[in-house]
Every structure is written in C-alpha cells, then in structure tokens.
C-alpha cells in the first residue's frame, strides 16, 4: 500500500517536473541579455555570435527550442554549460553531492535537535527549560542562515579555532571521487582520518544552515505537544496512571509529530535555497553556489538543469515526508486502503 502510494506520487512528480521545466525554460529566455553574447564576451565578432545562437538553437521559435530541450532531456542530456564549458550533467554530478551532504546533515539536525527540544519544552511548560528553549529558538528562527554562518564562523573558526574556515576536507588529504559525497568517499577509500576531517568540515556549515529549521521544528513540536497534552486521550492516559515518561514519549509525541514532520519536509526544501549564501561563506563547492553563478552568466542550459534538479530534490523530500506521515497516522493509512 505504501508502494502504490509512492508510485502514484512519483507519477505526479514527473508531471510537476515537466511543468517546472516549461516554466523555467520560458523564464530563462525572458531575462534580458543575449546569452550568446554574454558567453562569447564583448570582443567576439557578430558572425561568431550568430553562429553561437545557431548552436544554442536560439534562432528558432521558443516552442521548437523547448522541443529540442525535451528530446535531449530524454537522453539524459541537459546541454552544455556556457559557464563551465562542460555538460550540465557533469556539473550537477560534481556539485550536487556537496550540497546534498550539507542539506542532509542540516535536515538531520532539524530532526535530532528540533524535535527533542520541542518535547523538552512542552514537558516543562512554563519552567526554565521551556523559557530557555523558547528564547534560543526565537533567536535562531529570526536570523537567516547566512547570519548564523558568519557568526559561527567568527566565533568557532576565527576567534576560537575549533572548526576549519572553508572547504570540504583537509587540503593535504586527497580522496578519489566515487559518489561525490566526501563522507562516503573517505569511508570507501578506508581513509579514517579523511572521514573525520570531512565531518569536521561539514559540521559548521550544516549547523548554520539548520539553525532556523531547528528553531521552527522545536517551536512547532512544542505547541503541538502542548495541544496534545490538553486532549482527552492524554487525560485518560494520566487517569490510568501510565508512567509520565511513557505518556510523553508515545502517547503525546506520536500524534504531535505529524505536523512537525510536514514542516520539516518543507524546511528541508528551503534549505536548498538558503544553502547558497552559506555555501559562499564557507567556500563550499555546492550546487546552490553554482546555480547563482549560472544565473548571473545567463547560462540557459545550466539554469534550467539546476532548477530541475533542485525541484526534484524538493519533490523527493516531500514524498519521503508523505510516506512517514502515512506510517504514523493510521487514518491516512486506512483511507488509502479503502480507496
């Protein structure tokens, strides 16, 4: 039943991606400026520019251009980037894992820190742990990720040199690229010191990126837990003398998790966007940084490719959250079955 749900969601995801591709394809062509001219630079001759326009199919109507794009996409080809002069697919394969690494760890922080903090605050509602958590999470929510990136960088890398300033791994370590995920590649290479170094480099940017999500998850979980605590079934559990810790952990937490998970899913997608400034601050060679670079260069193929990949990641994150919510909430599960 889960399988069929995922299959159905994947189907609709394809449709959404198609829509996204059309939209971004058009938008990219509406932005002022001639991509061929930007790519060739101011010294190129008129003939060269015209030739370039032909190569890029820019001399044809937009609808034909889109047709070209789709046929190439079917073959797994997103075209050549004018920015790096390489196939866009190659660029994405190189830059995406770095960002995913960052975003996945940030997502892990949101779940592993945000949820427990929310539960703790709800448990001690009105007490000092609650007040402390509320103040801290308000701070983390109200400043954007790049502010935290700068603050953390200054505090924990510059004044107190606990963490590296930039990069993905110590410069003396070189690891063959297999998956592109530094953490995984070091393990595949059996390079233990490299693995530790990769994690060490990853921690601060991921943490900075996750902070506002952590705060949001904690605050939402707290208010959901408090609402759940006022519900009759919690009173019933208490009136039967179930241990308080059990009530908190299973009776109150499980129903409260449903909205928290949904929000974490959305936040997770927002991380991809927020990652841009964080990647710049930590000199992290990720897809967000690449994406902004290609937009400024009006590199049409790369813009469309990057946006498509980010949308796909967003949609996949939502499918995962959807499946988790289905697993937790019997109502959805059974509505599904009887359909």
């Amino acid at each position, binding site marked *: 039943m889960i399988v069929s749900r995922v299959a159905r969601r994947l189907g609709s995801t394809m449709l959404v991606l198609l829509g996204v591709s059309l939209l971004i394809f058009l938008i990219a062509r509406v932005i002022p400026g001639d991509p061929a001219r930007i790519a060739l630079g101011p010294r190129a001759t008129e003939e060269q520019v015209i030739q370039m326009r032909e190569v890029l199919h820019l001399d044809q109507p937009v609808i034909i251009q889109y047709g070209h794009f789709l046929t190439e996409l079917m073959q797994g080809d997103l075209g050549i980037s004018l920015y790096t002069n390489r196939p866009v697919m190659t660029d994405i394969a190189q830059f995406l894992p770095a960002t995913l690494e960052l975003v996945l760890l940030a997502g892990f922080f949101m779940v592993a820190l945000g949820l427990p903090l929310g539960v703790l605050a709800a448990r001690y509602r009105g007490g000092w742990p609650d007040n402390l958590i509320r103040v801290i999470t308000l701070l983390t929510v109200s400043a954007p990720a790049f502010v935290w990136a700068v603050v953390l960088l200054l505090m924990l890398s510059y004044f107190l040199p606990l963490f590296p300033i930039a990069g993905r791994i110590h410069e003396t370590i070189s690891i063959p690229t297999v998956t592109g995920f530094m953490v995984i590649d070091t393990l595949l290479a059996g390079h233990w010191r490299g693995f530790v170094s990769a994690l060490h480099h990853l921690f601060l940017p991921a943490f900075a990126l996750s902070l506002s999500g952590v705060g949001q998850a904690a605050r939402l979980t707290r208010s959901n837990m408090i609402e759940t605590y006022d519900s*009759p079934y919690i009173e019933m559990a*208490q*009136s*039967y*003398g179930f241990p308080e810790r059990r009530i908190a952990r299973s009776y109150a937490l499980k*129903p409260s998790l449903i909205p928290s998970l949904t929000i974490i899913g959305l936040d997770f997608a927002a991380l991809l966007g927020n990652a841009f400034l964080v990647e710049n601050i930590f000199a992290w060679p990720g897809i967000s940084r690449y994406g902004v670079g290609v937009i400024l260069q009006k590199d049409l193929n790369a813009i469309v490719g990057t946006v498509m990949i980010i949308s796909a990641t967003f949609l996949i994150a939502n499918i995962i959250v959807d499946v988790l919510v289905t697993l937790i909430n*019997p109502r959805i599960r059974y509505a599904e079955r009887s359909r």
Partner: protein
Amino acid sequence: MTQDLTLSIRNLTLSFTNWEGSTQVLHGIDLDIRPGERVALVGESGSGKSVTARIVLGTLQELASATIAGEVIVEGRRMQDMTPAEWRSLRGTDISMIFQDPTVALNPVYRISRQFHEVLRRSQPSIKRREAEERCVAILADVSIGDPARVLESYPFQLSGGMNQRVMIAMALINEPRLLLADEPGTALDVTVQAQTLHLMRELVERRGTSVLFISHNLGVVREFADRLYVIYKGRIVERGPTKAIFENPRHPYTRALLAAIPRLTGSGIPDIDEVSEAYHEPLVDHENIAA
C-alpha cells in the same frame, strides 16, 4: 466508619490561584460512597463536580495553581498520608475513570488492543500477550461486543461512538477497580446509545460490586442509575439523599430548578428557570441521617 467506605470525602476545598488572585471552587464538600454503591454528583457546568473527581483521582493535585485542603479517603487510605507516587499507583488499578466523549478519549494513533494491554499492565506489569488478549475478549463480550477480535484490531476512528463507549467501559472495568469515576459518560453520544451503554454499565458494576461516582448535569439520566444523589451548586452540596427520596420530594430550590430543567415530551418548550437566585444558596437539605 470511614474504614468501611469505598470513598469518603471530608470538608474538601479547592481554589485556583493565578496572577489576578485566587478563586474558590469547592467550599467544603462531604461525600461518602459505600462498597457497591452508585452515587451521583449532579450540578450545572462549573459547579465543581468534575474537579471533585479529578481530586479523587489525584490528577488535579499536579497543577501548581490548585490549592486543595480537606480529606480524601479511598478504601481506608488517606490521600494526605500518601506520596503522590503512591496515590498514582491506585490509578487505573483501584480507581478508574470513564470520560465524556469516548471517541476523543481513546488515543487516535494506537489500536484498541494496544490500549487495553497498557491498562492491563497497570495491575499485572508482566502480563503475557496471550493472557491479555483472552481477558480483553472476555470483557468485550461482557459489554456486548459481538466481534471482539475485530474491535481489538481497530483504531478508535474505525468504531462508532457507541462501540467506543463500550470499549471505554470495558477498559475501566478490566482491572476490577474498587471505585469507578464516571464523568458525564456518554454525554457526547446520542440519547439512545447513551441509554444503552448506561444500562450495560449499571449491569456490570452491579455484578462486580464496583462503587461508582457518577457525575452528571442530567437528573433524568441519574434517576436510572444512582442509589444516592448529591446535588452540588457553586462548590457546595445543597441536597443529598436517596435518589428516590429526592425525586419524590425535592426540597432545595436549586434541586427543584434542576428537576424542572429535564426536558419532557409533553412540555411547553424550554422551562423557565432563574439563572441565578438567592434561594439557590440556601443551606444543605439532608434526606438521610448519616451526618458527617
């Protein structure tokens, strides 16, 4: 004397304090329940009937804003002599409670069987799955559920309100409690279903000799169910006595107003009752001689 009683409440007072000051909710309640007796506590909303049940249960004491004085004695054990943890150990074993709306009082994300299991573990922490299942099936049969296996495998939202109510009655009685607190049971259900389940509940507690504190705002429902009656108004007991005696001869003005409020088939619409009346504050009318 109090040793023989299942529940004895003496001069119970309760006030809530917040930053604006304190509000007194209970002004010295006395109430007794003998073994196997069904006693009803009747009054309008806000009269203090539900908080009384929650004090007996010990859950209200956990609120920092509540100040409670007086004596609560269950089966000869004085609450004041026990630690909160000791009192807590009585919950779900010697004292259990039935709630107003069964569909929201059962946990929405767990199957009925799991919730039963949890309740059973209160009295037998190491109960085996098989034994638990047998006991659940037996008690569900007692509350006239024809298909216990299916009900146990269900989530509350898959059952009707009446079914959930039966499940809740079964859950409250499965550990053979000495005292059952029923807080407006079935008020959220429609009248016919409420009547059915109340009959069922009455039969069961009668057979098991369970004492019941039945809390309600509806004298019509109480008449069927209770041996004795306490009428509560604004935190004071205004009339007490055998159900029959009070129905035949209601002497306190507030009791009369409550009786007049029972809707009748051949009435003249909504009865005309004073919302507030000086007469409601008249002293206790006692139909029995068991003085405090």
